[in-house]
């Protein structure tokens, strides 16, 4: 079975019927490309780094600066675009770390049961009983606020969600006929887990990962807002909203545009994730 080919024909047709999902896809492709090309397409790329220009400070949106400038004269549009870069990078890396870290214990707990199951799932429960932001904040509380540490903190508390997902899926799937067939011919455990069960978890995983991109971005923005994310002068969308909030009601363009940027990113992944969920007929 060649998954790619089928996906392109019938799958795409089905997906494209839902306009919102297509919109989500367009958004995601849009801001990912923009973030990727940040250094080349922003009007003032150097404003994303250490840059000061007090003459131009706190200017409202104008032709020269579409989103206005901030307290020390940096172009907000450029900073927002670079902020996207940072948020996407962070979310991506978090998932790359968290997903395998969570999937493997989930597979083991679900398949082998017994002692493995008890230990792994109790630990998972402990992590999951603390509200996400609280745990991330607490971990960050003990670390220096840097981008790397934020990634570590979020990954450290994100993996249990995947453990739980895979645990539930594995428990269902291990009774399927093809699994029993593989076991009967003496396939080693790793084969059953990685080649029989895991591939059938891919639709759920894919959907959850897409939706999680949006949640991680939200979480990271929250951390940034409280000052626990990156350090200045690196632009981070959450901290930019906080910066602007301090000067309300003047300088309103800073929180509004950064906030909108976060909204668009979260919206895009959310819509895309919903569309995937419908397309792949998954129960997340």
């Amino acid at each position, binding site marked *: 079975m060649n998954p790619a080919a089928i996906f392109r024909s019938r799958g795409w047709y089905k997906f494209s019927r839902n306009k919102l999902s297509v919109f989500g896809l367009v958004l995601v492709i849009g801001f990912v490309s923009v973030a990727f090309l940040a250094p080349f397409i922003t009007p003032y790329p150097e404003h994303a780094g250490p840059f000061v220009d007090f003459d131009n400070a706190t200017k409202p949106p104008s032709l020269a600066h579409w989103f206005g400038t901030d307290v020390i004269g940096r172009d907000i549009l450029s900073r927002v675009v670079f902020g996207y870069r940072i948020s996407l990078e962070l979310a991506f890396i978090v998932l790359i770390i968290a997903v395998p870290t969570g999937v493997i214990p989930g597979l083991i707990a679900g398949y082998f049961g017994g002692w493995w199951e008890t230990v792994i799932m109790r630990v998972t429960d402990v992590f999951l*009983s*603390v509200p996400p932001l609280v745990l991330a904040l*607490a971990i960050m509380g*003990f670390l220096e606020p840097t981008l790397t540490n934020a990634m570590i903190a979020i990954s450290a508390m994100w993996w249990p969600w995947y453990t739980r997902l895979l645990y539930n899926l594995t428990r269902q799937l291990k009774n399927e006929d093809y699994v029993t067939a593989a076991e009967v011919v003496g396939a080693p455990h790793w084969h059953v887990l990685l080649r029989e069960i895991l591939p059938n978890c891919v639709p759920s995983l894919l959907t959850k990962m897409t939706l999680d991109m949006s949640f991680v971005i939200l979480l990271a923005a929250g951390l940034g807002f409280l000052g626990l994310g990156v350090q200045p002068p690196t632009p981070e969308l959450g901290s930019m909203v906080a910066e602007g909030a301090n000067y309300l009601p003047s300088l309103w363009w800073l929180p509004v545009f950064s906030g909108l940027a976060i*909204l668009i990113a*979260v919206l895009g992944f959310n819509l895309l994730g919903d569309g995937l969920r419908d397309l792949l007929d998954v129960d997340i």
Partner: protein
Amino acid sequence: MLIRYLIRRALAAVVTLVGVSMLIFVIARVIPGDPARIALGPMATKEQVQDLRNDLHLNDSLPVQYWEYVKGVSHGDLGISLYTRGPVADDLIKTFPATFELILASSILMIAIGIPLGTLAARYRDGIIDNFSRLFSLLGVVTPNFVWSVSFMLVFAFWLEVLPVAGRLSETVMAPPHVTGLYLIDSLIAGQWATFRDAFAHILMPAAALSLASIGQTTRLTRANVGESYERQYIEFARAYGFHEGRIAAKYALRPALIPTLTILGLDIAVKLGSAFLVEAVFAWPGMARYGVYVILEKDLNAIVGTVLVIAAFFLVINLIIDIIVAFIDPRIRLGVRGQ
């Protein structure tokens, strides 16, 4: 049957709480950096740091430290805050009611708006209400609540000037006599209308900002569950017997759908507890979450551990209560039938 189920759940919650305490404790001690040094600042002498370390048992082994901590907790002692210099337990008791009031208010909003809206959306599928509620829920879910907070503040407090900017009460208003710690209730009990109105005006924006994501989630969930309920044959049965569509929506379709919806609401409280950190920060709401933000920024070890523990305990208790309610409502659980 029911009692046994609940006792099992309660025990599981206690075990989990112990696990959480161990987790946060380990994190607190394992992360590099000397908490005593951080608390006393770079000016402190080596001796002062050592003294503090001994006081905090930081030189003992991890299990011993944990044991000392547990002993303290059983006496209601959560350690001393390096920031306020007072008992952490006191700080938490002082700030808890404000957060509780906020969470309560936003939960009420969530249920009062989310469930009817979701039901109407399911009933008039693909109609105007449905499309509006989908848009509304989507916006609620994807917009970070701090963005809502800042926007509300901008529009209602600064531009329109109809609501106060921050805090629980205006500076000129005294807090009502303490009964529950919830100003809205206490002021009503004391008959202080002006105080009530002031407290109400102050809680409006934070509660709304906090609840928007939940309202969105609840609406979606209710819509999905009620929609599913509508697909079942007992709805066709009700229609075949000529019952009015309105009655079908509010009674026959909604009630079976409430059970799965309620179960998820517990998780939602968790999200609210986290989001409260952001909302309280924006509105300078003197609650536990804002305290939590401070102590985290100050790296106040004991306070962080204490706050996380209390929050986790709160979350577990709420979930337990919801389990009790669900067990009560769902006849299948109440009468001890296994599986759903």
